[in-house]
């Protein structure tokens, strides 16, 4: 049974090439599988829809270019939903690269919403170090944590910041997070200490851990996990974008990996049986 031994020793470069093709082809020739919206994504959407026009929310950009493909689509879809409903966004970043991610998302979205004005409907307050400690500080004294926006202009100059001294006047907190500091810290401080509803968009790596917080204590109201979560959200706000486009490629790549896992295991069991028979 030589073939089974072959199964065990496929050159990894063949796998590399197959994965690359498996991802590239569906991008060029979409297959058009349909998408189902899951419960946790819907909770995020509903929370946002229930906010009254004019409400201010805080979005924290806790990621960088390394995870941009997964999280940027969420940022864009959330911004689109907020601006459609006249929800105002205060953006901050716990990762320095988050400032640029936020700028890029805003530039893209604001082109569709000409009425949105910086300082009234949206503000980018820039990056602060310190993770959990800094969140705790801004929850008690927001204005001394953020004396200026990302451009160094005092926040008193912007109408959107009027009366914001802590989290009291925020509708909810959203953390778009790729790790630490990120969503976990926001849950611990913004919800568990100061009682603000928190929702999150995370990389798929983070999602299984964060699901423990989606519970009847509402530590986390809802969660967008990875590209799939982003695609579902694009579907809900009815603005298909990068994530929706990537779903087919994602499916095919998963299938390829599953097939290789099966091949590896078939080879393993077949050769093991032979070994034990010999013994």
């Amino acid at each position, binding site marked *: 049974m030589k073939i089974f031994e072959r199964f065990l020793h496929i050159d990894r*470069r063949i796998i*590399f090439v197959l*994965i*690359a093709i498996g*991802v*590239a082809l569906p*991008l*060029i020739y979409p297959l058009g599988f349909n998408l189902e919206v899951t419960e946790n994504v819907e909770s995020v959407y509903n929370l946002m829809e229930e906010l009254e026009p004019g409400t201010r929310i805080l979005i924290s950009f806790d990621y960088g270019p*390394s*995870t*941009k*493909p*997964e999280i940027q689509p969420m940022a864009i879809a959330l911004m689109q939903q907020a601006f459609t409903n006249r929800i105002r966004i205060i953006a901050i970043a716990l990762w*320095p*690269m988050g*400032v640029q991610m936020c700028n890029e998302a805003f530039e893209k979205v604001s082109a569709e919403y000409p009425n949105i004005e910086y300082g009234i409907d949206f503000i980018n307050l*820039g*990056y*602060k*170090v310190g993770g*959990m*400690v800094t969140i*705790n500080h801004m929850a008690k004294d927001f204005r*001394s*944590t953020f*004396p*200026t926006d*990302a451009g*160094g202009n005092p926040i008193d100059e912007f109408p959107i910041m009027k009366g914001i001294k802590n989290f009291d006047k925020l509708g909810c907190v959203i953390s778009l997070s790729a790790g630490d500091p990120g969503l976990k810290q926001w*849950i*611990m*401080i913004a919800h*568990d*200490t100061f009682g603000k509803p928190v929702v999150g968009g995370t*990389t*798929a*790596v983070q*999602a*299984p*851990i964060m699901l*423990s*917080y989606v*519970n*009847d*204590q509402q*530590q986390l109201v809802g969660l967008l*996990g*990875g*590209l*799939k979560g982003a695609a579902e959200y694009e579907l809900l706000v009815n603005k298909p974008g*990068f994530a929706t*486009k*990537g779903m087919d*490629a*994602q499916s095919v*790549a*998963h299938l390829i*990996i599953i097939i290789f896992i099966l091949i590896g295991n078939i080879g393993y069991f077949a050769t093991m049986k032979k070994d034990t028979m010999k013994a």
Partner: protein
Amino acid sequence: MHRIGIWIGVFLTFAIFSFLYKDNPFYKIAEQVFIGISAGYWFIYTIYNILIPNLFVPVTTDLAHNFLLLIPAFLGILMLCRLIPSIDWVSRYALAVVVGTTAGLFFKRYLQSDVLNQLTATMLNPFASSNAAQIIGELILIIGTITGIVYFFFSKKHEGAFGTTARVGIYFLMVSFGAAFGYTVMARISLLIGRLNFLLGDWLGIIKP
């Protein structure tokens, strides 16, 4: 310059992908550029977004109200003394403040969020629902959480009924590791989709980026 930028990006992308074949000078160059730029970015953003607005501006414009900020400024400078080996021990004073604050905050926040709230979130009445899947699910959740904690119990030998409970616990842990594994596959593939979208869209223009 947009086009040139794209070409630089493509070159760097392939330089890093060449690592898949084997470690080589192109990869090493790209890696060092990455490290250098990343460090420069952190440096600049820390100065513009933190040290200037939160320290320099308040202290220089209104010292009377902000003189207390000179304390963290002093501690920060002590922190930098770590670069000079002969007096690097003074950085411990600054480190002590940082570590003390973190330890104090971690103590209460982990206790609240990861212990107390997780505990109350598991206090469920599984029979409250009429949906069979939910009843089974919540029973699984309760049993899994308790047996999982039992697995991490170190002051008792895993034998007899206790050992069996721990054994059940490890099975639950394995399922969650499997789920986490599946999700990680998903994450990494998404990043590759992002890259190919750049190559096929922004660079080659085969698809709409």
